[in-house]
């Protein structure tokens, strides 16, 4: 029995140490440093901050709502039906996720959508549709169809069944997707900087401006704390909601989708086309701009300045593999702890793991600089980049696996225990098979988070290794028709690579998934 307890402790300790050393410790150090020289700004500054804070909040709420609504038809289609191109369509919606914001920004500007709130919201939907389709779709595809059919047999309309049965059952996944989209848009940086100009700024943009451009570290720290409080509040509400609405309905072991028939055929086609069209407009701009003679061939040649551009793909893949392995390991352990324990401690643990997603990249990056020279000097080391990626990727793994784990009825585990299975065996035979699909969805996100080079890495001092997004920035920041065409071509390659990786991960399955 003792070894069981130690085993549980170890499972809890690994993610706790990870988040503690690579997130909480640097965060505390940098905030304390900023606050030690604290002074309050002038009234004009405060007026601007109130405006910035309000804008940050409402644009995030509206972006989240819009994303949920606009992604709903596609989510329904790919989770409920089997049709030719379903996997491809699901992979394609994930693709915008990796695009560097500068590339998306330039595509939007080229379309004439710039310096407006509309452009910012549209870009946020463009980036985040995948979060909803994949997070909600995973659960929806596995709801027991008997519930739906029973409702129909008892005379309820399709709409009533959706409203009273399906929607309540989907609530955990919808809340999970909404929380991620909210955090992403709450801390939106590049999109707002490029499409919002100076007029519209989020707290994230203002933190960057204060810390990096105006050297006002105390004010930046104050803003970072306001941002953290907002994020923590949203997350707290979310975890409470999640606990209250956790459903333990039996899930199917895996999706048994049917071919759409009758009017559903048309609806499925329309739903998928709608979403694909929405995301393909900006992508079409990229592709058009990349179609210059020699642009793709140029990626394989030694550019006199930046080297062979395509070599950055190797660096990106290496970082992405390391980051997603770390994220899955930490995320799965954390998810096991969160679902097993319940209660206040586990709620705060869950919340803390989500925080990096809602913390300003400048704060994390500068925190690394002041904190991570002890006990080993990790600053500017190779490992810091995949670790920073993993910090942002862990929440995806946790968010996709926890709802699925929660849906396992307690009796199933108890029955196994009564029959003499050890806790490890219960986990391996019951939790793991049910969760592996969800964990893989999380892994796919972790991979694309890293490929897209999210978050703190722009502010992390690092060895001179160019990833694809960095290479795209380098090409785009110099004049010349070839520079533009190659930057766009490399973006298209990044998109293609992402689609391939996501398709491949989607096909992976771990072992035989047993029914229960």
């Amino acid at each position, binding site marked *: 029995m003792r070894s069981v307890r130690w085993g549980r402790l170890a499972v809890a300790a690994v993610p706790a140490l990870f988040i503690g050393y690579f997130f909480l410790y640097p965060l505390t150090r940098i905030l304390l440093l900023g606050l030690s020289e604290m002074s309050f700004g002038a009234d004009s500054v405060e007026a601007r901050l109130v405006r910035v804070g309000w804008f940050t909040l409402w644009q995030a709420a509206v972006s989240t709502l819009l994303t949920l609504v606009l992604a709903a038809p596609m989510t329904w289609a790919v989770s409920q039906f089997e049709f030719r191109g379903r996997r491809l369509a699901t992979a394609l919606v994930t693709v915008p996720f990796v695009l560097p914001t500068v590339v998306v920004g330039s595509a939007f500007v080229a379309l004439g959508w710039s310096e407006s709130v509309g452009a910012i919201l549209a870009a946020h939907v463009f980036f985040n549709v995948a979060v909803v389709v994949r997070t909600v779709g995973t659960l929806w595809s596995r709801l027991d169809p008997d519930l739906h059919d029973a409702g129909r047999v008892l005379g309820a309309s399709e709409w009533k069944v959706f409203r009273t049965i399906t929607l309540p059952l989907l609530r955990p996944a919808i809340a999970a997707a909404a929380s991620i989209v909210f955090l992403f848009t709450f801390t939106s940086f590049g999109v707002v900087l*490029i499409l919002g*100009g100076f007029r519209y700024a989020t707290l994230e943009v203002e933190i960057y401006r204060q810390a990096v451009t105006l050297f006002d570290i105390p004010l930046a720290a104050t803003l970072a704390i306001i941002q953290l409080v907002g994020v923590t509040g949203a997350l707290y509400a979310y975890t409470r909601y999640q606990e209250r609405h956790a459903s333990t309905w039996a899930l199917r072991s895996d999706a048994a989708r049917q071919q759409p028939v009758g009017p559903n055929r048309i609806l499925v086609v329309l739903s998928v086309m709608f979403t694909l069209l929405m995301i393909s407009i900006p992508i079409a701009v990229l592709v058009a701009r990349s179609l210059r003679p020699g642009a793709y061939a140029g990626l394989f040649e030694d550019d006199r300045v930046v080297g062979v551009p395509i070599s950055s793909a190797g660096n990106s893949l290496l970082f992405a593999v390391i980051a997603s392995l770390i994220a899955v390991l930490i995320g799965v352990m954390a998810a096991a702890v969160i679902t097993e324990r319940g209660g206040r401690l586990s709620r705060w643990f869950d919340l803390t793991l989500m925080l990096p997603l809602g913390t300003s990249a400048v704060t994390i990056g500068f925190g690394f600089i002041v904190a991570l020279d002890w006990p080993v000097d990790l600053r500017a080391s190779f490992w810091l980049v995949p670790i920073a990626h993993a910090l942002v990727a862990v929440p995806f793994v946790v968010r996709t696996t926890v709802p699925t784990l929660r849906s396992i009825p307690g009796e199933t585990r108890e029955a196994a225990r009564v029959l003499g299975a050890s806790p490890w065996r219960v986990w391996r035979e019951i939790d793991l098979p049910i969760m592996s699909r969800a964990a893989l969805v999380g892994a796919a996100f972790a991979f694309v988070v890293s490929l897209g080079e999210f978050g703190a890495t722009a502010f992390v*001092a690092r*060895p001179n290794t160019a990833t694809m997004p960095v290479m795209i920035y380098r090409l785009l920041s110099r*004049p010349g028709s070839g520079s533009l065409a190659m930057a766009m071509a490399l973006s298209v390659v990044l998109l293609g690579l992402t689609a391939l990786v996501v398709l491949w991960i989607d096909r992976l399955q771990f072992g035989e998934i047993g029914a229960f």
Partner: protein
Amino acid sequence: MRITPLLVVALLAAACGAPAAESPETIKLIAHDSFAGAVDEETFAGFTDETGIEVEVIAAGDAGSMVNQAVLSKDNPLADVLFGVDDVFLSRALDEEIFVEHSSDLLHEVVNGLYDGNQFVTPIDFGDVCINYDKAWFEEAQLPVPTELDQLRAPVYASILTVEHPATSSPGLAFMLATIRDIGEGDDWLDFWADLKAGGVHVVPDWDTAYYSDFTRYGGDSAMVVSYASSPPAEVVFATEPLDEAPTGVIETGCYRQVEYAGILSGTEYPEAAADLIDFMLSVEFQETIPLNWFVFPANRNAELPEVFTENTTVPEFAGRFTPETVARDRDNWIDQWVAVMEG
């Protein structure tokens, strides 16, 4: 006790051990991404051949982010040498005392106007922010290319000009400083901007948007954009199809010079090697590689420019610049005034 030859050798080796520590195997250079991006094995090969010391480059984001990282880590520096601090961030770096003094023997070879007697940093290169124009567009429109800033007040020019926002863009800030310098402080420069606004000038957040979305050469509506004096040669070097001459030109008034400096980070264990590296970067050998790698001008006046530069651009005449202290003190205020005029 008999002293064996072996012991002598051991003592000699130990004695040599101490100075060996002063000459490291590797020296670390922290630089902004746009410098780091063009570094390859060749970049510091001359330095390594001469001294036996390898150079490890650490990339640290944009110039502002890099200076902040250097300030935050000054008790335990990330590197031995920092390169790429410019006038905008210099006063922050000097206030925080992140550098130790170094006076290069090559300073007398530096182009006039770059070195201001500062003992802590050494100028390595400079770039001039200037308005670029689309040659073909002006030819077709049969419109003379403006030669004075004042001409831009006319709507015919203002409406085809794109500038970057001074709060979010480094060339945007430089161009705003040029207008303050040339048109005059007080209300004069603000009147100029009010005229530009009335004439329909276009303001965008960053250089990429100005150049690749707004510039007529890339399908936009502006035949003039704020860019660099080195952009026309870059157009030739990085063209998809070979060009005989640059498709863009530089308007040589209203330019603003940005200087990039290197400094030895205080706390380094190897100040001498760090000094040698800075001297190497100011030597003609290294300076002549600057234009085609970083598309800025060498600080050493003995360095020759490559042909593609001499044929397609000129180094604009130096028209003066504000001191780093002035920029640090007045920048926010100027930007606020600019915003009040342009967005009010």
